[in-house]
């Protein structure tokens, strides 16, 4: 074990405290302000009230935005799970011409600035597909999110597949299992946790995506991030945003908790 002097411990502890404070104090402010009577965020909060919570729960635009975000998130996650897993298998199990290029092209969208992806897809949808009569509409947004969500599943599944012993699949076939039984009973259970963790990350990535969404959302369709952005431009409703943000903060605990449980190596469980 690395031994630290008392001074070093105090110094490092202070840095951690400051860093955590920077991350979490603003979140607490949001939570506090969601109970603020006032129209705009103020500090200190003088009058507490649940009026913004009441308004938020009955707001039709908020409900629509959440629904859109969930649908797009689930759609993009589904695309990412299927394609990401297939690509991971192709790259891990087979050698073929252009293998390295495929690897690069799959990972690239996550590194590409959202503005570039957004503009590129927007141009494609509006100037190429629409003139020839293809209206991508809602699906355009799902596909756009899928481009970078694939990476999450791909990376997770590929990393796990690399660690699997190919012998266990041979053992399964040797014991009479058909290729499909082998996949279902031996291969999939061994990368299931990576698959689910990748899916959760993909959903999270899609859920708070702003830049690409601005360029690809059909007219009049708001996802939750877009709704919040628009709301910030109208200061009279700012406290409504605090309520929505508080709910999102609470909801984020679920995927974080699930993925942390799942990312543990199956061999670590006792």
């Amino acid at each position, binding site marked *: 074990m690395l031994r630290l002097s008392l001074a070093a411990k105090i110094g490092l502890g202070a840095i951690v405290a400051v860093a955590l404070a920077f991350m979490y104090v603003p979140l607490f402010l949001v939570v506090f302000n969601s109970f603020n009577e006032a129209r705009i965020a103020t500090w200190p909060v003088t009058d507490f009230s649940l009026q913004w919570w009441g308004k938020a729960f009955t707001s039709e635009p908020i409900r629509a935005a959440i629904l859109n975000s969930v649908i797009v998130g689930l759609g993009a996650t589904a695309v990412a799970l299927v394609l990401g897993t297939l690509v991971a298998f192709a790259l891990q199990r087979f050698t073929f011409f252009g293998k390295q290029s495929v690897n690069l092209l799959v990972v690239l969208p996550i590194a590409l600035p959202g503005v570039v992806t957004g503009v590129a897809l927007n141009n494609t949808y509006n100037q190429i597909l629409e003139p020839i009569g293809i209206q991508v509409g809602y699906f355009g947004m799902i596909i756009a999110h899928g481009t970078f969500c694939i990476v999450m599943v791909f990376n997770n599944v590929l990393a796990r597949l690399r660690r699997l012993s190919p*012998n266990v699949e*041979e053992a399964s076939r040797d014991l009479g299992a058909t290729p499909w039984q082998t996949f279902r009973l031996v291969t999939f259970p061994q990368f299931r946790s990576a698959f689910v963790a990748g899916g959760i990350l993909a959903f999270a990535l899609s859920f708070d995506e702003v830049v690409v969404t601005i360029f690809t959302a059909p007219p009049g369709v708001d996802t939750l991030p877009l709704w919040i952005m628009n709301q910030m431009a109208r200061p009279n409703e700012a406290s409504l945003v605090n309520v929505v943000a508080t709910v999102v903060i609470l909801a984020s605990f679920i995927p974080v908790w699930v993925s942390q449980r799942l990312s543990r190596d199956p061999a670590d469980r*006792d």
Partner: protein
Amino acid sequence: MRASAQQAPSVSDSPRSLPGTVTLRQVAKRFGEFSAVEQLDLEVQPGEFLSMLGPSGSGKTTVLRMIAGFETVTSGSIHLSGTDVTQTPPHSRPVNTVFQDYALFPHLTIAENVGYGLRVGGTNRTDREAQVRASLEQVRLSAVADRLPHQLSGGQRQRIALARALIMRPQVLLLDEPLGALDKQLREEMQIELKQIQREVGITFIFVTHDQEEALTLSDRVAVFNNGRIEQIGSAREVYEFPKTEFVARFLGLSNLIRGTEPGAELVSVRPERVRLSAADTAAAPGETSFLGTVAEAVYTGPTTRFLVDTEDGQRLTAERANDHHPSAETAFGRGDRVRVGWTADHATRVA
């Protein structure tokens, strides 16, 4: 071989159909430019314990994998119990394999691992559980039924891998260096256990190993592989005492390989324990080939002492003597002693 295919098929030509017979006819395997196995003919008898012995890259594992169905053959045919399985996928062949690294399913319990083959084969839960219980008892591991593979020791995993294969009641069991990962003592225990199990179940065992001692100890017959070919096949005694080629003589144990001085002289192999060692002033026995030399090294190995002798004509010979004298007595010769080494003709084997 090619010609015989054009003749009317005779009885002796068709592969034997007794359950447990494995017949390889002119089997070859190429990986791109590399020829892993060349035109191999092999017939394994029902209930036989056959070892395929050879250095790594000699083709023995490839042959095993072709019998299991994990590798396709480039040419030739494979028959199991008289049925042509050359094109049969591994899950439809009546053979099972014990893998080198055991290949237990890490996410399944020991009982689930052992019952896996019955489960995918559609055996109902009650029958399956009964058979798994009996199988775990056979390998004396009932206590670990609910554990996961990583919680078991190497020797325990080995026995589970064996149980998982044997529960399928295969006609032929393939074993790919199954004892390679175990330490020496455990390996020797497992050798005896393997031999006993083989005798109990009475099925054909095909055993791949690079450990010559293991092959000699366990097998009814040993097939010595080199460069994708079988150099020699026969009982342990045959391949050890009468190696046909220089490779077999060198690969199986220690051997003195001596070529006569006259042109065109044959190469002979003499095992160190067949070399007679005596004081330099003793006369050569009648009919004995002998050399005078100096002991360069005397190595005490416990049961034997090994003497490296440099002969006057510049060869180094190895002689081994059993330490069957009084335990506290010194060995007869030491470094620098002048000795005579020799053997009678019937202790030497001509090799190609």
